[in-house]
């Protein structure tokens, strides 16, 4: 079971500010998702390798060949704040 503290902890790691009502709603939803995982757990997986990827594909790689970048103007188009061609972010408190 996921507690309210768990939700608050994960929210803080993701820099999400949740109201008490939202915390409660997330707690319920996350627990519902976990309950679904429990349903999957009921399947007998003896002798099955843990699977991280559903597609049986490996070694998808590319050659080390440069490709054109995007212009800074495009990359900065959605920036909430900028200084020249830098993104500008609030000062970082932590050293």
């Amino acid at each position, binding site marked *: 079971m996921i507690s309210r503290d768990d939700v608050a902890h994960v929210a803080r790691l993701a820099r999400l500010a949740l109201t008490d009502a939202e915390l409660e709603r997330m707690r319920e939803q996350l627990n519902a998702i976990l309950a679904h995982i429990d349903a999957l757990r009921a399947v007998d997986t003896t002798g099955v390798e843990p699977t991280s990827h559903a597609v049986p594909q490996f070694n998808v790689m590319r050659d080390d060949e*440069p490709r054109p970048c995007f212009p800074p103007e495009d990359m900065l188009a959605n920036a909430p704040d900028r200084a020249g061609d830098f993104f500008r972010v609030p000062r970082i408190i932590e050293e």
Partner: protein
Amino acid sequence: MTAGKWDVVIGLEVHAQLTTRTKMFCGCPTTFGAPPNTQTCPVCQGMPGTLPVVNRRAIEYGVRTALAFDCRVNHACRFARKHYYYPDMPKNFQISQYEEPLAEEGWLEIDRPDGHARRIGIQRLHLEEDVGKLVHEGTLETAQASLVDFNRAGVPLMETVSKPEIRSPEEAAAYLRAFRAVLVYLGVCDGNMEEGSLRCDANVSLKPAGAARLGTKVEIKNMNSFRNVQRALEFEVKRQTEALDRGERIVQETRLWDADRGYTRSMRSKEFAHDYRYFPEPDLVPLKLDAAWIDEIRRVLPELPRARRQRFVAAYGLPAYDAALLTQSRALAEYYEAAVRDFPQPKLVSNWVMSELLRELPGDDERAIEQATVTPSRLAGLLRLIDDGTISGKIAKTVFETMVRTGEEAAAIVRREGLTQVADAGALAAMVASAIAGNPKAVEDYRKGKTAAAKAFVGQVMKASGGKANPAMVSKLVEAELEKLTKT
């Protein structure tokens, strides 16, 4: 090292930027120093809907390094997401490796201060992507905002974690030096610590001398040179020793090295609760490295620093000291070998490279050595002029300095400045005669048995000739002349 009743235990984590042309997961170039945010794309900025694709050369470089450290390359490996929140990381997670890293269990041999070699175990080697660069507006204390440049975000990084088997700050510096040399020989990293191509974090702990269990470790960050690594670790060992001697406990934490003030200070650790919530990167399918590919990479491994050093002793008959100095970088070793091919007197070439060339250039700076104005063949040309008696060794040093400045061939400088050694017996005899005639007192001294007086005459003639007289001939002429005088 034993700090009184404590054993020092150090483990190093080294992050090396790979010298691929493009980033780890997209085709943006990795050129250093480009204008801000000109080398980015939606992939390396983590825009929704984009997909990363692994750079094959980065994997090859990782395998190459793993083989050089005698690691076990994991045929099956995969990437993972490491989550944390910091403005220099556009996706709010870093693609890294966690379970199933590229390689594990290797070693690196280091030279200890006492001259003996020692193996330091390597725990794991994995690949990941670099983050962007933050520039603070104004000073750190007064800054209201930070500026972010994502050019570096996504550049391939190779993280190599040593086992906690390093026993002193000196050994840590030796490990880093040996590590860097191997990477540079392999051509996978330029090894430039100032530009951040090579970064090092350390875990330091102390335990009661001889105890098996490790003490609480402290992580040290922000050491950006070999010297700073050693200084920071020396400070930290002292700090922990004093705390333990006072009966205090060591707190597990991350500390930052402050090079200007010369101490480590605690980072506020609240936000650094190591809660990275790793999980397999769903956007990248796992790798199954082909054994034939790994064999091929092994087959073309270049000669590594240690092997080359041993060969320099065996093949050229060089002292161990010379061999170590000359093999500190691949470029320097290659410079030396090219010069010896042109002028096959290994020890003489070694002396000139160590004293004259390294006075002008740092021996571990690949680029500087490769671009040296005095090329190996030019150095050989200079040495030939000494060998055939055209100039004296002393004059040759002046010629060398001119070569560094002007980039000319030695012969051209000698011709232009008229530095050719005077080896004409008649001309030298006249100079000797005049020196002897001008100093009857010294001749008297010589007669009374002060043979050292002969040296004074040689010196005088050398001086009178502007250093151009052939010293061996002058010496012979002076002796013959004095011999004659004493017999009369």
